[in-house]
Each structure stands twice: as C-alpha cells, then as structure tokens.
C-alpha cells in the first residue's frame, strides 16, 4: 500500500537560513512517526509547509499517491491533514462544542447554529477515541491536558486522518503526557496516522513506531525505537557525542546557607500552597525538589525569592531573616534565581540583551554612576557574558525576544551565575530546551555547586532532579513528604512519594 503521506525534497529558505534542505519523509497509515530534532532544526518549518502556512521553495507533497498543492490550512484540512499547535488556538469563554464548531458550523434551516448535533458528534468522537471530553464545559475551566484533547477533537471533527502534533507534551505534566500517549495509540489503532514533533528522547522511545531525525534542516537519520537507543538519537540530533548523564563528584558539603522553618505560603486564591515546611540547603550541595506541578513548588520558590509574601515561618540566608524582605534585598544577599517562566519573569523581551543582562544589577556601580546608566560598562559586560556563556546572537543590542528559547535561558543563566552568589534557586531551569542546552545548563549548575554555592533545584522533570541532586525533597500538596539522599532514591520510590504515597504508611493512605 502506498504511504498515506510523502514529502519529497522539501526545501525552504529564509533570509540567511536554509530552514529545510531537501527533506524526504514518508508516513505510513496507522503509525506514529516521530520527527526529532533540536530547537531550530527545522521541524516546525517543515510542518508549517505541510499545513500550508508556508510555501516550499522546492519539493512536493504527496497524499495517498496524489501530489497536492497546499496553499493554506484550508487546503490541508481538505486533504485530511490537521495540526495541533504548541500553543492552543481555543476561545476560553466558548464551550468545547462552540470551539470545535468554529469555522465549520453545523446549522439548522435559516442559518441558526445547531449545537446539539455538533455536541452529539463530539460525544461520539470522544467515546470512539477515549478522549473523555465533555462538549458542554467552557474551555477556560479545563486543565491544559484536556484543552489539548479539544484541539485533537477539532481535527477529528473535520475528518482529518493525518494528525500533526507539535511538541504536544511541552505543556503537560508527566501524568497528562502518559494519557496523551494512550490517546495517540488509540488513534493509530483506529487508522489515523500521526506525525509527532518533539525533542524529548524518552517520549520518542515510548510512543513512536518510526523516528526521523533532522538537524540544521536536513534529515540525518531514520530509525525505530527497537533499533535506536537514547544516546545514539541524541548524538544524531546534536551532531556530536552528548553526555546524558551528568558527571559530578561527591558533594563537599559546608555550612548551612538556606534555612527554612515552618514556612506557610498562600496561593492567589488564598489557599495554603506551602504547608508548614522546613528544610536546609548547605554549601556545595544540590537539594532537588521533586513533585508534580502545582504541589506548592512554584509558591515555595516565589516565597524564597521575595516575590510572594509569606504567611508564617522563617526563611534565613546565612542566618539572616528574609521572610519579609524584598526581592532586591534577597538578591543583594547573594541569592540568584532562575525563574520558572523565563519569558514572563526572567526577561523583558523587548529590551536588548545587554539590558536584560543587568536587569537586577543596573542600579549598582559600574553600571550606574549617580543617576546615569553607564552604557559603556553595560555593553562591556554584555560582550563578555555573550562570549563566556556562548549566547548565540548577532550582538548585544538585539532584543531578548528575538533569541531562541535556549539562548534566552542562557541570558538568564549568564546574568544570575556571573554574580558572586552563595545561593542559587533554579526553577524548571531546562523546561522546553533542547538536549544541547540542557546539557550545558546542567553542567553550569554543577559547576556552581562545586564552587561552594548552595543550590535549590525545583523541577517537574524527575530525571533532572535525580541526576543533579545530592538530596531530594518530594513535595506533595504543599508538604515535604520526605527528604532522601540521591543515591538511595529510585524512580519508583520517588514516583510514589510524588503521588502522596509514603512507603511506610502505605496502608494509611492507600485509600487516597
């Protein structure tokens, strides 16, 4: 049987960049085909061409043996191709039904919307593919994972049988990602075909049937999960040997730097998010905070860095109480913070890189003299850090918003790590970054630890926490359920703790 979709020699040039260089790709019916590559490798460009958002400079698209021209998403949908974007295209104040109908409305005589018929159709689709979506809820009330399923329903409703999922797990918790994997399975079992774009190796191994790796716009290899291993795929992706395991010496632990006692923090809705917790971080060690997103890690980190008021308890840095201190006072005590959401908290995207590199030191000499900013000193620092931290940019005056995600994170890391610091609070430091950048940032964190810095690492990537930490604290519903040395921790054990099941009290909580 002919493949359901074939891309032949697709080439796309952007000014100064060859985004796709004669890419060939075939998709068989009923398979999950992973498209693996680093940020900027050209995956999304390729899919945007397939979806009609860009026109290829060369090459052709063949669907079910028929060459087709795709000039717009409308053409793509007509050919049975649908795409779920990284950022959802949903109207939050509309119901699921209304969102799905949008652009393809079911009408009664006289042009009135027929929500009932549409809802019925959605219910059927939801049942058929085990999507478990209620057509009548408002999208804004749905968790992110379910919103994504609404996007999938939108495609199925329009009878797409080639589904493109662009980095679908980037916004999901590990649990939601597992559910998505099941849904993808059920979709292909019923004859749909899926192109799955990602840079996460583990997912590729778990979900896909075939793998195509692209690097710098070219196909550099194809494989299957049975033949490949993570290390080989990573090497193909990055183009050089990659250290997936973080190499580190045994921690040389010194004095206590961060001391938290009976800390209570509330969230936006005035609910207790951090519930009476106590812990310490010593010089020269990494304390990892593991936990499913939304169990108080965000609020804890914000409280430690002065961004969120504390309700009760104390936080001390080298013995100095900071529970009521401002972010600036905490920064000046030698605390660095890599925030969870780099674009929202860590950078001013419309400012040049140079200004972002002095975002929290601009008022100090040598960057300010009296009221005057010292443009010369700021630029000198920027040039130095761009070199030292390998930030890929045409120059220090380029806005932070025009950098790729990995380079944006490097700007933050450069700013925070280049100051004299004794405490580093890093929250999701590698979220959404490619393998090369992840490796780089991990190495920098361990370097800081070895210099004698105390490191608090909060991450929902269990692998990351296990690789970097010397001790691991597991948070569940605002409490630290356990703290254990990293060499005694197993993935399964921590996974159970993350789910709130304490090994010693299994009986007591198993009813949970």
């Amino acid at each position, binding site marked *: 049987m002919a493949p359901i979709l074939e891309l032949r020699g697709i080439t796309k040039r*952007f000014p100064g*960049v060859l*985004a796709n260089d004669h890419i060939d790709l075939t998709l068989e019916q009923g398979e999950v085909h992973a498209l693996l590559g*680093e*940020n*900027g*490798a*050209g*995956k*999304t*460009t390729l899919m*945007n061409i397939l979806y009609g958002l860009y026109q290829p400079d060369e090459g052709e698209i063949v669907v079910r043996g028929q060459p087709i021209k795709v000039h717009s998403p409308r053409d793509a949908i007509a050919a049975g191709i649908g795409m779920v974007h*990284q*950022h959802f295209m949903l109207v939050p104040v509309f119901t699921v039904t209304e969102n799905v109908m949008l652009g393809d409305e079911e009408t009664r005589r006289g042009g009135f919307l027929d929500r009932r018929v549409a809802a019925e159709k959605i219910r059927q689709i939801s049942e058929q593919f085990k999507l478990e979506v209620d057509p009548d809820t408002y999208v804004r009330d749905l*968790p*992110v*994972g379910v919103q994504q399923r609404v996007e999938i329903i939108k495609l199925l409703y329009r009878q797409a049988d080639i589904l493109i999922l*662009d980095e679908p797990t980037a*916004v999901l*918790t590990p*649990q939601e990602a597992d559910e998505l994997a099941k849904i993808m399975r059920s979709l292909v079992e019923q004859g749909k075909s899926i192109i799955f774009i990602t*840079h996460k190796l583990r997912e590729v191994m778990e979900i896909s049937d075939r793998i195509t790796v692209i690097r710098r716009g070219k196909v550099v290899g194809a494989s299957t999960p049975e033949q490949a291993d993570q290390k080989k795929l990573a090497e193909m992706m990055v183009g050089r040997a990659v250290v997936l395991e973080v190499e580190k010496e045994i921690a040389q632990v010194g004095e206590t730097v961060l001391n938290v006692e009976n800390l209570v923090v509330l969230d936006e809705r005035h609910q207790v*998010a951090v519930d009476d917790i106590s812990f310490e971080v010593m010089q020269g060690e990494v304390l990892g905070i593991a936990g*499913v*997103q*939304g169990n108080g890690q965000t609020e804890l980190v914000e409280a430690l*860095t002065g*961004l969120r008021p504390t309700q009760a308890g104390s936080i001390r840095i080298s013995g100095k109480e900071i529970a009521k201190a*401002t*972010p*600036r006072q905490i*920064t000046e005590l030698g605390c660095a913070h890599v925030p*969870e959401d780099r674009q*929202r908290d*860590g*950078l*001013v995207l*419309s*400012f*040049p890189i140079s*200004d972002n590199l002095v*975002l*929290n030191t*601009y*008022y100090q000499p040598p960057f*300010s003299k009296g*009221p*005057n*900013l010292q*443009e010369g000193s700021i630029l000198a620092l920027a040039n130095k850090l761009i070199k030292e931290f390998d930030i890929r940019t045409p*120059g220090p005056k*380029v*806005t932070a*918003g*025009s950098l790729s*995600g990995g380079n944006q994170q490097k700007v933050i890391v450069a700013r925070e790590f280049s100051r004299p610091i004794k405490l580093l609070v890093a929250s999701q430091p590698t*979220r959404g970054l490619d393998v090369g950048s992840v490796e780089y940032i991990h190495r920098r964190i361990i370097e800081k630890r070895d210099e004698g810095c105390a490191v608090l690492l909060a991450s929902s990537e269990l692998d990351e926490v296990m690789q970097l930490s010397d001790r691991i604290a597991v948070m569940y*519903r605002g409490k630290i359920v356990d703290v254990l040395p990293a060499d005694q921790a197993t993935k399964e054990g921590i996974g159970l703790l993350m789910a*709130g099941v304490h090994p010693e009290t299994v009986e007591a909580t198993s009813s*949970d």
Partner: protein
Amino acid sequence: MNDTKPQTQPEPEKKDAGKIFLEEVTAGPPKHLPRWKRRLQSAAVPLLAIFTGLVMGGVIIALTSEEVWQAFGVSFLEGLKAAWQSVAAAYSALLKGAFGSPSQIMAALASGDPKQIYVAIYPFTESLLATIPYIFAGLAVALGFRSGLFNIGAEGQIFLGAIFAAFVGYSLTGLPMILHIPLAFLAGALGGGLWGFIPGWLKAKTGGHEVINTIMMNYIAFRLSDWLLTGPMKRPGSFNPISPTIMDSAMLPKFFGDPVRLHGGIIIALGMAWLVNWFLFKTKWGFNLRTSGTNPRAAKYAGINVPNSIILAMFLSGALAGMAGGNEVLGVNYNLAMAFSSGYGFDAIAIALLANSQPLGVVLAALLFGFLRNGATNMMLQTGIPIDIISVIQAFILVFVAAPAIIRTIYRLKKPAEAEEAVVAPSWGGG
C-alpha cells in the same frame, strides 16, 4: 490522584489589546542596524502617514467644495481642474498662515525696520507658539506610554497646571521675576502632577485602571476650574468667569516686540524634551519605569518596586501636562479663563503616537500640529474651508500611524527587519 491542584502550566503569554498597542507604539527599529538606517526606518511610516493624511485631506477639501461639483457637471476635466485649484488654494493658504509669506519676510528684512520684520514673521512665530503646549503635553503622554500607562488625562492635568500657575501668578506680589516665574511654572507642574498622582496611586494600590480614572479626573478638573472661576478665583469686579491677571513678574519674557507673542516657554519645552529623553533612556530611574511598564513581573523579579514606579510615572506625566497649562497662563493668556485649552491634552495622545513615544519625535510631531493648527486659521479666512479639516487630517495621520500595515501596503515598504525575524522565528526557532 486526580485531586492535585489545577495546573499552573506555562500558557502562551496572554496579551490584552492595550499591551499589544503599547508594544507597537514604543517598539523601535532593530538596534543592530546603523544609526542612520534605524532613524530612517523608524521615520518612514510617520512621514508617509503625514503625506498620505494631507492627500486625503485634499480629497475631502475637493469633494466638499460646491464649485468642484459644479465643474464636474460641466466636464470631468474641468472638475479635476477645479479640484486641483481648490486644494492648491487651500494648502497654499495653510502654508502661508503657518510660515508667513517669503516675499513679505524678505522685503521686511531688507527694510530693516523691526516693526515690519515682526509683522512679517508673525505667522511663523504664532505656529511656534502653538507648538509649545503640544510639546509639553506630548511629552506627558509619551512618558506614560513608555511606562506602560495610558494617560488620557492630560487635558485635566493641563487645567490643574493652569489653575496652580495662575494662582501663584496673581496672588504672590513683590517677587522678582527670577523667582516668580520658576515658582509659578513649578506650581503648574505640581498641579498637573497631583492630578496624575491620584490615578497613579489608585492604580498602584487598588488596580483601578488609569484610563478610566484619568478620564474621570478630566471632568473633575473641568468643573473644578468652572467653580473656581465663578467663585474663589474670580477677578474682583468682573462679570465674566475669569481670574485676575497675573503679575508682570510672573509673565514669561517675549523674544520680540509686538505683535509677536513667542515667549521663553519654547526654551523650557525643548529643555524638557531633552530632560525626558535623558531621564527615560539614560538613567536608572528611567530604566525602572520602562521595565515596570514593559514587563511588571520581570520588574518585580529584578527588585523594582512596581507600584512606586506607576505612581512616579503618573506624577511625572501629570507634571509635564501641568507645565503645558502653566505655559499657556504665564506665556500667552496671563489669566485663567473657562475652557482655555482647546484639547491640547487629547491631541497630545496623537502626538505621542506619531512620535513613537520618543521625546525628539514629540518635538517634531508637536511642530507639525502647531503649524497645521495655526496655518488652518489663515486657510479658513482665505478660502472659507473650516478649520475642522485639520482635525480630519490629524485623524487620518493617526489612523495610518496606528495601522502601519496600510502605509506599508500603499508604498510597498518592507517590514522592519526584526519584525520579519519575529515572524520567522517561531518556525525555525520554536520547534
């Protein structure tokens, strides 16, 4: 296990229309280009917008002229001719009203008689005179935009500035000029600043939106001035709602003899433009305001006190607008009368937009508005075309500046390089 809290996943940044708008009006051209190229790129759209606005104004002048319609009735060619004539007459009267007549100026200069020279340059100086309040008020709105705030209340702040300046101007006696002028001028700034401070404080402490509150403050200011002029500040013995005349020692000095009214306020205005530019872009205080305005969350992260920045920005913005009011009282009117400001504060929004919120741009845009407004008076006298056509032209210019895509399409301009990158980036950088 499904009872963990609702997700706090990173969502695509939600931007409200205001935020997008602010980004658009404060965005600069890419910084890595050579300076002159950047200048040219950022000036291209405003300049073409002005040109297109004038063309559209011409079309309306032609279409609203009865003679033109009659000529079209005769023949199409006659119609075009008449249209051209009416527009040419209107715009030449406008230019003459704005700049004066070159031949008259040359003759006056040749005669060497100061009186004649003053009469000849009078139109030009009147245009500059009209420019001064536009500069102050335009700077006020631009500073707000740069700090992430929509100060729609410049008009009310102008009134407060005028009230304060007038009071200090006529009530303090026996002061030397060197003290009285600065004192009265600063009182004007203080009055406007106070009127900006209140909505700033409300926003910082309660989250009340400054657009609503500054508009409301406008009405309070108008009625407050009405009340003061019929009561406490009314000129003794007068039947009109008008304040006493300010002391001679508070009057801004004039450059030339009668009838030229151009006064020292223009130097203060240019000085303020320089000062605002320095403050916003060269000082740490400006960095505070710009960061708070662009990304309040990152500003908080960086240790900036965002509520204080909002209050300060609104105070300074109000103070600049207050200077416009003080300037009119101390330099032009010498008293406070009802409805003395004819919408400077609202035109200022257009000026700040046209200027991309750059102080130098504000000066240029203010010049344009000042010359248009002054020239239009002559145009009305000469050709009978109502002065309101200027508002139409200004509105067209604004539309074209606010929707640069129109201008780019008409003149086949390329998008600024960085904007193009930004479009491309999600494709090959966002994977």
